[in-house]
Each structure stands twice: as C-alpha cells, then as structure tokens.
C-alpha cells in the first residue's frame, strides 16, 4: 500500500532515483520514501502492540475491558462465545483430519483431497448448526431470556493506575519533544 507513495505522481519532491518505462518517467522522491517509511513504521508498531496485548493478556480480561468501555453486553458475550467455540470446532476439525488420515494414509490425490475438504466443511457446518441450537437451549435452560447479565468484577487497582500514569507521562514527553 505504501509503495505508490514513493513516486513523484503521489509525492512530488527531490528525485533520488528514476526509471523510464514505455515513455513514462517514474521518479522516486526523498519525501515519498520518508512518507512510506513513516506509514510502514506506524502500521508495524500498531500491529506489534496489538499482538503484544493479545499475547500478554488473558482474553477474558480483554472482554472485560470492552465492557468497561460500554460496548453492549450482548456483543461482548457473543465475542466471548465465538472465541470459546473456535476451540471446539478446531478440535472437531483435528479429529476429522486424524480420522481421514488413519483411513486414507497421509498421501491423498488432489481430486480426493478436494472431496474430503468439501465434505469436512459441510460436516463442520452441520455440526456447528446443531451445536448452535443446543447452546441456545442450554442458555434458555439457565435463565437466558434475551438479555445477558454478567458478574461485573472489573476494578482498576494500584498497578493499573501506576501504569496509566506512566503511559500519560511518556505520551506527554513524546508530544512535547515532537512539537519543540
């Protein structure tokens, strides 16, 4: 995505390197390179922070944070259930794969492989559909009636406030440094 930004069409400026192709002149500009580098660095740091957060925080805590930000409870519950059942369906897929392997061996011809994958997808869809009904019944059985109530135990303790304070100070320092 950042690649076109390095050319003079999008970012005019001081030419660093150029090439002609079919009578068209493509110049890479210093300003274009700087803009593309900044874009890539921002994307990389955002993704890194997201991955770091996901790897270092229990998903249940992340869901609680969503609740703290007033995301509707039904949405948070649905997100939690999606994650919960990904593991159940992954287990089904792994077991199906093992069963196929035990009967067909590791080497399967391309055409047969396509059929097996198609059948597995259909089977998984059928099972997920059945489970959807059963889970809904289990929810009804335990009092679900359209609205979800959960145990709200999210509390910010001293460590959270200290970390928040440090983050604010660092952000202010960076902002001050950039401005002056």
């Amino acid at each position, binding site marked *: 995505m950042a690649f076109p930004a390095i050319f003079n069409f999008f970012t005019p400026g001081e030419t660093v390197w150029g090439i002609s192709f079919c009578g068209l002149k493509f110049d890479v500009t210093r300003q274009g390179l700087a803009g593309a580098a900044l874009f890539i660095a921002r994307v990389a740091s955002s993704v890194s922070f997201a991955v770091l957060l996901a790897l270092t925080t229990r998903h249940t805590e992340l869901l609680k944070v969503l609740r703290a930000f007033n995301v509707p409870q039904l949405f948070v519950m649905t997100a939690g259930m999606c*994650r*919960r059942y990904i593991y159940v369906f992954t287990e089904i897929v792994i077991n199906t794969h093992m069963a196929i392997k035990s009967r067909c061996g590791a080497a399967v011809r391309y055409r047969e492989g396509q059929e097996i994958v198609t059948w597995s997808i259909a089977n998984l869809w059928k099972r997920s559909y059945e*489970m959807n009904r059963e889970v809904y*019944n289990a929810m009804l059985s*335990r*009092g679900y009636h359209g609205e*979800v109530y959960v145990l709200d135990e999210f509390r910010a303790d001293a460590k959270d406030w200290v970390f928040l304070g440090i983050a604010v100070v660092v952000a202010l320092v960076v902002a001050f440094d950039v401005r002056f």
Partner: protein
Amino acid sequence: MDAASDQGAENLPLKSPMAIFMENVVYDLKNVYYAYLGKFPALAGIDLAVVRGEKIAIIGANGTGKSTLLAMFDGLIFPDTGAISFFGRVMDERAFDDATFSRHFRTKVGFVFQNPDVQLFCPTVKEDIVFAPLQFGVEKHKILWRLDKLVEILKIGHLLVRAPHELSVGEKRKVTIASVMINEPEILILDEPTAGLDPETSRSIIDMVLNLAAEGKTVITSTHDLHVAAEISDTVHVFGKDKRIIKTGGAGKILTDEKFLIENNLMHTHRHRHGDKIHTHAHLHEDHHNEKYHWPGAVNLREGTDGAKR
C-alpha cells in the same frame, strides 16, 4: 399454635390422599408423542408421573428417546400430541411466554446436558457457574457465597479462571453440575452424567447426586450404566426401541432381570480369562456381590467348572 388457629385448622376441608398425591406430582405426562422434523419419532406414547423427591433412572439403548424426554422435562421441546404438566400447569410454548412461569420453572429445574461443551458457553469457568443466578437477579453476595460452597464441595477452585476448553472431560462435567447446582434447583435432570468418565470422577459425581437426593431433591437420570442406575434411583423406567416405556419398577427388581435387560440391549455377556479358563457371564453390578447371577456354564471365580480351586 393457639386455640383459635387450631379451630381454624379443624374447619379446613380434609384433603384426600389423591389430592395430596397430585400436589406432589412434579411432571405428569399423558400419551406424549414427539417427532423430530415431524417425521422421525422420538417419543411414541409416553405416560409417566414423577413425584416430588423421587429418584428416577431412565434407561434404554441408544436412540430410544431418553434425551428427548429429558429435554421435554426441561421445557426445551414440547409434545406434538399428548400433554406434559409441571405441578399441574400444562407445559407448552404459551406457558413459557409467561415470564413469571418461565422464571419459576427455570429456577426450580436444573438440567445437566449430555455434552458439556454445549453447556459451558462462557469465556471462563467462573462466569459459566454464576451465569444462571445472575439471569434470575440473585444478589451478588449470595451468588458468591454459593459459588464458594460449590467450589469447596467439588474441589474446583483451581479451575475458576480457566477457559472451558482448557478442562478435561471430568472437570467439564463437574463444572456443568456446579453451573446447575448454584441455582439450588428442586428438580435435577442429568443426561448421562458419568459417560466417558474415569472411575474416580464417576464416583465423585454419583456421591454428589446421592447427597442431593438425600436433601429431598427430585433426581431424574438418564444413563446406560446400570451400576449408576442401581445406585441413584428408586424407580427405573426402561425405554424400548419403539420409543415407549416398556417396563417400570423398582431398581432392584428391574436391574436383576437379566433376560429382559439382554433382550433390550441393556446388558451384554462378558467374557474374560482367568488363567487358562475363559469365564462368561452376564455383566451386572450384583455379580461382584452375589454369584447366583452368573450364567449357567460360567466358571465360578473360586471353584472352576473343573472343580479346581482358584
């Protein structure tokens, strides 16, 4: 009690034994039929009454309608024809549209599903266990008190912060039972509670159910395991291939009727080896206690058919 109230009590009309019995009938099923998608029969003419405090086992081969009946007991499905009532009130979809009845029913009845993955839908074990009382608006301190009690009884404190997929089958089963028991239901319905569990976990679950039964709760259990049925039930209903109850009676009587159990695919002959002798007999719990249930031709465990001492 003072004299005035004594006099008042005397003026009350006496209830007939039948009226008292009817007041204690939890479920009353009359000629219940149910078919999946309207064409695959699952229950074909069930007549059954469950009385308060009763311990019932429902046994039968696969596909005889046991789980369907339990789902009906829990108000999740309703008869196509015939009727089911709960303490005298007809259970149908209209009844559950009444929020008061629905809430009353759901607080009284607890259902432990056969597949724990279906029942554990929350991100953590703790959230799963407290789900039901939260929906009924039970106060938080009461919920946490019940949770602490259950954690102690079931020894599941170390599981509370875990996600359900991080549990073993036995742990999942314990958590599902906790998630139902926290609501303190009067009627407990269990669908194959010990299926796929190791002996120790099975034992702990049976003990737990026995404790609940001793508290006077109505316990309805569907099982293939005749040992479990013998232990946790007073009355056994046997389902046949024609999706109806083919026999009802005391656990002691039905579970010792070998011929009947074998005919209905509830017991098999068990063959194993003792040294150089092959030993064949019907496999019953009582085998471990009483040799009279061994089949003719079976080698006596202590004195083989050859008379040799073992």
